[in-house]
């Protein structure tokens, strides 16, 4: 009986497992294999030659290859950390505002917030590159009205990456607000009523009811926000080309430059493997932290 059950389960799972194997696991294993090869992206896999850990030594070495890779890894980490640090609190704040039943225009606000997520990145990048323009950009003109001098935004290595982060936050916050609202709907209203009877003010209700009960939603949002941020490519390719002085050169853009433009497939694969490992470590750490909190 159990054997028949196992056989039928295996048959039913086979199509999905096969598809996952072909389209997800195989490319990942291929990338790992290529990371140990010297291979030009434009030639067949058979032309790849095994070079052991040389690609990894190169990307962590002292030459320009190593400096560019570690710079891109650092930029990606900063971009991701800033994006998540801004998106999560903002999404909860907007979620709370929109979720209030007694606030007029809540639905309209929800639509406006989500609409930024639906705008294609090409349009967002074009508009924001003009907003940030140092000479004729509206942002600098508005700053001028309150007596603040022109800011370089994308033209300075100090502010270029942060400027790209703001663009990302503006586009993504609506989506995460919708997730936050979904989390808020899961909290029973009776808890707030009980808290009110006990004399809890709004802040205490938020601190001791809303936030703890939204932990799972926030964990999910954080994981998605991290994955989205790590994959940033379009604004860098369209606006800054990784500059100035490599200050916006994030890993996906750098891998594209190395692996496709320069056709250095082995080096590009080694960089992709490191990006994948970093992402796995961060997401696992996040889940471990959340599990520990749950156990406490």
């Amino acid at each position, binding site marked *: 009986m159990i054997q028949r059950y196992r056989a039928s389960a295996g048959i039913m799972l086979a199509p999905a497992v096969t598809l996952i194997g072909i389209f997800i696991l195989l490319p990942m294993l291929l990338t790992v294999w290529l990371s140990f090869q010297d291979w030009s992206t434009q*030639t067949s896999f058979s032309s790849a030659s095994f070079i052991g850990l040389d690609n990894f030594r190169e990307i962590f070495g002292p030459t320009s290859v190593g400096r560019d890779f570690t710079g891109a890894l650092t930029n990606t980490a900063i971009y991701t950390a800033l994006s998540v640090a801004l998106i999560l609190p903002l999404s909860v704040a907007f979620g709370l505002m929109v979720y209030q039943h007694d606030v007029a225009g809540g639905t309209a606000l929800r639509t406006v917030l989500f609409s930024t997520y639906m705008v294609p990145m090409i349009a967002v990048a074009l508009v924001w590159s003009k907003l940030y323009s*140092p000479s004729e950009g509206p942002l600098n003109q508005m700053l001028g009205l309150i007596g603040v001098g022109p800011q370089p935004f994308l033209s*300075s290595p100090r502010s270029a990456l942060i400027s790209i982060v703001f663009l990302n936050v503006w586009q993504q916050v609506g989506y995460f607000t919708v997730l936050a609202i979904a989390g808020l709907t899961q909290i029973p209203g009776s808890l707030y009523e009980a808290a009110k009877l006990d004399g809890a003010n709004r802040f205490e209700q938020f601190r001791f009811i809303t936030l703890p009960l939204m932990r799972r939603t926030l964990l999910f949002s954080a994981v998605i926000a991290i994955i989205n941020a790590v994959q940033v490519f379009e604004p860098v390719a369209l606006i800054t080309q990784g500059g100035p002085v490599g200050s916006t050169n994030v890993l996906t853009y750098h891998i594209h430059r190395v692996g496709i433009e320069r*056709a250095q497939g082995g080096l590009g694969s080694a960089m992709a493997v490191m990006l994948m490992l970093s992402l796995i470590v961060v997401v696992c750490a996040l889940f471990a932290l959340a599990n520990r909190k749950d156990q406490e």
Partner: protein
Amino acid sequence: MSFAWTSKLALAAGFAILPASGWAQSVNISYLTHWSPETVALLEAAAKDYAKTNPDVSVTVRAVPFGDLLTTLRSQGGGADGPTIGGIYDLWLPELARDKLVAPAPDAVASEVKGAWPAGVVSAASVEGKLYGVPNEIDVYALNYNKALFKQAGIAAPPKTWDEFKDAARKLTNKNAGQQGFGMINSWAAGVVHPFASLLVSNGGELVKDGKPVLDSKQAGETFQLYEDLIKSGASVPAMATADANTTGPFLDNFVSGKTGMIIMANWWESALKTGMGDKFTDIATAPIPVGSSGDKPHSISYSWMTVVNANAGQAEQKAAWDFLAWLNNPKSGKNGASAMSDILMSMGILPSRTSDIDAHKDKLGSEFLSGYVSVLADAKPFPVVPGGQEFSESLQQTIEALQYGQVSAKDAQATAQADATSILERAAK
């Protein structure tokens, strides 16, 4: 006649006309470029002219931004469905040829090109003696300056030496008006490296000699120092120098709006200046690159573009592509003895490289803006076309930008540039 007989006769007739219809089948070829829509329209018009005598060949033109051109060629050129013809920068050729993405020119095209183009341009379109592309444009760098700003600052003539250059840059700088003397460029490899290289060769130096980088020379050290001096004195402001993926952006905006006194740029940006400046374009003049204390006379960096054919396209498509390119670059396809390609290039202010085209466009090349470029062509030094050239260029860009933003000193920039270039070119040569 029964239905069965009618069917058999129809089938037989179908087989009979099959070879004829096979011959009449049209060949579709595509042309990938980074040109603007206006220029693409001119190329499409030329393709229509070609179709009048070659009705079986249809040419479609596809344009992508300059920043995406190499990626598109690399990602789509590996298959038969990729672009049949691509316009490429000579620096990309050695690696595209190594990876067998581009086809060698047929003998007829190769002998025509070798006889009708200057030897230096032919060599930039060749790898190991084999011609891979039909050269079209040649670009050279010169000093562009704003005559109105020069007049305001009391400067009578464009600077001829680096001392005069630094002095003019200082006089043209007006911090309160947001005006810089000399405009550098950043966030675009060629935009950063070519002006630097033009100053370097005008100081008697070179980027690469016999396949090895020579950025550790005294002349290169002086060029890095010139950049540091211009930045430290405030005569050049890096925040005004940014370029975007379309090779436009603040560096161009600042020059066309009269906030930059001088810039070193190539001839092809004449059309961008005209569009941005309108009537004020007459304020712009061209002069040779100022000469450094270690240099003998003004030199410039030159580079060329060519059209190549996808080595993975079908035989019929490749044959049609070479035939179209031979026609497009032939003196009979354009006006007054010029090739159709040169007419398209001249609409953008780009110098054609075919000898007969330069003669045919003598009048326009004598304009105030372009004559300054034509005059420096003879002493121009080609940008080194070596394996790893693109990576070398991007690496040097990073170092020069770090110098622009004060992250490294001129001395450190020189040492880093030489070390990086050595490692990149050695690895690429393996």
